[in-house]
Each structure stands twice: as structure tokens, then as C-alpha cells.
């Protein structure tokens, strides 16, 4: 597992688009396997707790990240890598995760139970895909954003 913390930039790292000190960027690179998911969702919850998210928002983000990763792992190509990037802004955490897929016949799990759950848990969700080409796998990317305060239920 690789841990990149842009708060302590590497020398010669080039211009960091998130050089704003109020923004923390963290990237996890794991095997696209279900056994990686508990670690990733725990990182998400930890970031939210440190960013002063309320308890419901911390739980929602933990569940949303679990769900997002599970969707990608389910469709990932054999031996694929799961890339998961967290951007912690004031009052908001954005998560982008992606992995390689073999078959893009129906790659985006946007009609599934898991997707509906994700929509309930996150404030914004999105999914994009790049079709496979000969000699190159396809790529699926799912993003979400979660605000620090849970909007009161109507």
C-alpha cells in the first residue's frame, strides 16, 4: 500500500495543484481485492474525524467509500490495482477511485442496489469509463463528495 501525503511534498515533485495549505491530498494504491476495502474505509473515516465531520457524516463516508470500492473490485480485471485519492477540503472530502476492467459491455454499476445506497450516503456521486482498446484495458472511475455536516432530514 502506498501512502502519499501532499502536506509534505517530495523534492522535485513539480507544481502541486493542491498546494493550498488548507487542502490535504492522500492517495492509496492497493490490490483491487475485497481484503483491501476495510483498510481504505478506515482511512476515509479517520480523515473525516480529523476534519471535524459530525458523527453521521463520518459513518456515511465510511459506508460510501466501502460501497464505492466494493463496486470497483467487483468489476476489476484480474490482478488490477485500485487507486483511491482523497482530497480533504475545509468542510468537504472528495474521493476518486478507479481501476482497470476487462469488459466494458456494461461497466458502470449505476443501476445497482450498491449505487442507490451510494447516492443516499454521499452528497455527490459520479462515474465515468474509458472503453478498452486492443492491448489496453478499460478504466472505470467513480467519484463522490461528502460534506462535513449532514443536512437535516426533511
Amino acid at each position, binding site marked *: 500500500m502506498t501512502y502519499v501525503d501532499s502536506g509534505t511534498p517530495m523534492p522535485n515533485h513539480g507544481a502541486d495543484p493542491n498546494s493550498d495549505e488548507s487542502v490535504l491530498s492522500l492517495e492509496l494504491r492497493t490490490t483491487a481485492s475485497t481484503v483491501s476495502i476495510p483498510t481504505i474505509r478506515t482511512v476515509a473515516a479517520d480523515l473525516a474525524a480529523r476534519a471535524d465531520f459530525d458523527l453521521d457524516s463520518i*459513518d456515511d463516508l465510511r459506508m460510501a467509500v*466501502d460501497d464505492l470500492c*466494493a463496486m470497483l473490485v467487483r468489476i476489476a480485471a484480474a490482478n488490477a490495482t485500485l487507486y483511491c485519492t482523497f482530497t480533504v477540503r475545509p468542510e468537504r472530502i472528495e474521493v476518486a477511485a478507479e481501476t482497470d476492467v476487462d469488459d466494458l459491455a456494461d461497466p458502470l454499476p449505476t443501476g445497482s442496489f450498491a449505487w442507490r445506497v451510494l447516492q443516499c450516503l454521499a452528497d455527490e456521486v459520479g462515474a465515468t469509463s474509458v472503453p478498452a482498446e486492443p492491448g489496453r484495458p478499460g478504466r472505470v472511475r467513480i467519484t463522490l463528495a461528502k460534506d462535513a455536516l449532514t443536512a437535516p432530514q426533511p
Partner: protein
Amino acid sequence: MVTRVDNDFPADIIGLQVAEHGPDARVVTVTGEIDTLTAPKLATFLNEQLSAAQVVVVDLDGVEFLGSAGLSALFEANEQANRERRALRMVCHSRIANRALEATELRDQFTFADSVPEALKHST
């Protein structure tokens, strides 16, 4: 009678226990994390209990994580109970599990009781 069920994961990830209350009621106690790794185990287990008993109470008080795979397993068990005219009743004082049920607006799908004795009260 309480039966500890062997599973592939240490008890701190998911624990499943079942107790028989007379010939027709069983209480399933679930502890730990219900996620993609462990939900299939829960789904199979609940399916077996619903096939064997008229009333199944699921005690979720010790649940520390409930992801969409876990919600799906509970939802499927509930559908099975409705289909086969069995009673599936939930007891849940786990903050995390309750949050999962509320945030996903699935709580209304299930029948809840305040406690295990309360859930068993109406069983025959």
C-alpha cells in the same frame, strides 16, 4: 441452546450465533463488521434459519459496520421471510447500523422490536 457458528473470519470481523427458543423461534446474534467480505456468510446463515424456524429475530446490537452488501443481505432475508410467510424481526441499538438503515432509507422495510424478549413475545 446457543450454537457458535464456525466461520472463516475471526470473531472480531463477524460473529454469528444462534439460539433456539422453542421449536419455532430462533435468535441470531450478529457482531462485528458486515461488509462485502462477510455479508455472503450472513446471507447464507439467515437463509438457513428462515428455512428452519417460523420466527427469526436478528440482534444487530453488536454490529460495528454495516455496508451495502450487509444491507442487501438483510433485505434479501426480509424478502424471503415475506415470501415464505415467516417473521423476521430486528433488534438494533448499534448506532452505526441504525445510521446505515436511516441514511439509506431502508429502515421502513424491516420490522423492529425494542429488545429480543419483545421480539419473541408474539412468536407462537
